[in-house]
């Protein structure tokens, strides 16, 4: 087993264990922390894929900011201690299983190697060599994918405005 494989399997296992623990813990704080482990392990997997910039963003945005906000809300509302489960009755369980199964099926289909995934050579490393590690992500984002990018930002803006309106009774 090569070093890359070793790193891959270690962090895959950590990610899966973290995800499983996240959905089985009763205490919200424990769940949130296991989710942090999953997100961090995903960042490590991005590094294995040579996408170091994405990995750093994953840690910076998800593990470092969004999950801290989650914890902040959990602690602020004092939800931290273990409570009863949210899954109600066999009907809820059945729907959850069905949806989860569908998602898993989709993922399995997506995971079969296609022609796009088998380009020779180290494409990411070449791109990063040519355009710098940020440029390799930024250039397509601001040229080829400009419209989706702008639409996403409008969506985020709408979400922010909505959050402020909901949170502030008196504006």
């Amino acid at each position, binding site marked *: 087993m090569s070093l890359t494989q070793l790193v891959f399997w270690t962090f895959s296992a950590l990610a899966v264990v973290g995800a499983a623990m996240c959905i089985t813990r009763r205490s919200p704080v424990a769940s949130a922390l296991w989710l942090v482990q999953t997100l961090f392990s995903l960042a490590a997997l991005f590094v294995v894929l040579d996408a170091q910039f994405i990995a*750093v963003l994953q*840690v*910076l945005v998800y*593990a470092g*900011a969004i999950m*801290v*906000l989650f914890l902040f809300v959990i602690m602020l509302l004092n939800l*931290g201690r273990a409570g009863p489960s949210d899954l109600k009755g066999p009907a809820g369980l059945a729907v959850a299983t069905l949806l989860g199964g569908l998602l898993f099926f989709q993922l399995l289909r997506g995971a079969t190697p296609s022609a796009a995934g088998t380009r020779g050579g180290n494409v990411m490393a070449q791109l990063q060599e040519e355009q710098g590690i*940020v440029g390799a992500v930024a250039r397509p984002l601001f040229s080829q994918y400009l419209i989706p990018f702008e639409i996403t930002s409008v969506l985020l803006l709408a979400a922010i405005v909505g959050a402020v309106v909901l949170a502030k009774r008196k504006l």
Partner: protein
Amino acid sequence: MTFFLVSSIAKVVVVFTAILVTVALTTLVERRICAFIQDRLGPNRVGPQGLLQPAADGLKSLLKEETLPVRADKALFLLAPAISFTPALLTFAVIPFAAPLPTRWGDVPMVVADLPVGFLYILAISSLGVYGVTLAGWSSNNKYALLGGLRASAQMISYEIAMGMSTVAVLLLAGNVTLSRVIAQQQAGGWYVLSLLLAFFIFLVSAFAETNRVPFDLPEAEGELIAGYHTEYSAMKFSMFYIAEYANMLTASALMATLFFGGWDIPFTSWDNGPPWTLAKTLATGAVFCVKTACFMFLYIWVRWTLPRFRYDQLMALGWKVLLPLALVYLTVLATAVWYLKEQLGWAYGPAFGWALFGLNAVLAGLLFWWLDRGRIVSGSVARAEGEV
């Protein structure tokens, strides 16, 4: 490969030891400087000039009784000091601290890992440090500790944004996030503190808030929260929070020196800028880097014993209503200026480019200063001196 492994392990050991020794010495230096500012002597009994005081303190921490609150969340309570301690020690890895060292087997770059993601790595890992503080506050099952933890998480998220925005300015100018490239550019065209004066100002303020130092040490404001998030901690676990705080200070100082003050560049000479590398160059640049970092450490301590603490709403208002809009406006202006100089005039980054940007920054800094002051302090005191008020 073997050479890479051996040199890397050697660098890791050296850097790790250097950080811990510096942290220990900084606790002593802080107490001595604080004593000087308050017109007393400070600890000077243990060893010559009190040099062994940190060792005595460490021994005391190790031998003290560890306490565990009865209703604390035990696992997280034990984990929290480690969580805040580890990222603090990890972040220094990407900072180049001297010119490359020539050896018989090839040049050794004097940085533990010159990652392509550069200072983004530091921002990412240091953003994980907040978990330690937050979880310490929550798991103690103590209302003051919880308030401290809540404050810490809100404060660190808020100022992380301003800090990230100020480093975007560096990225705009350097075109790259790798710290070795950032240093090379500053050697060629002048330090970024001149061409990015306002970005440095924003970074400096955010760095104080990120490291929970006065005037932003609200998470442990002893006047209102006993000791904040580490109220329930004792002995070595308590010390680990302190080591983390000082290690964060050290990394922030080194990062400011690297991003804005040329890193290991020796000013007013180009002797150190390029090959052939020699041992003398490595030692000299390393010393210069230490001096720059020490200046910022001193600034941290100086500010701590000079300024009073902010109120919590003032802290939040400063972060969201002043620093963030300021950073956004500044980035827009700076991007336009860089675009004009690079694309319209066709200049490459060099001394002339740097001075042109410095002119722009000086004007902006003057405007900012005038707006922040708004006749309160400067003209107010002048008026008082002239007897008009």
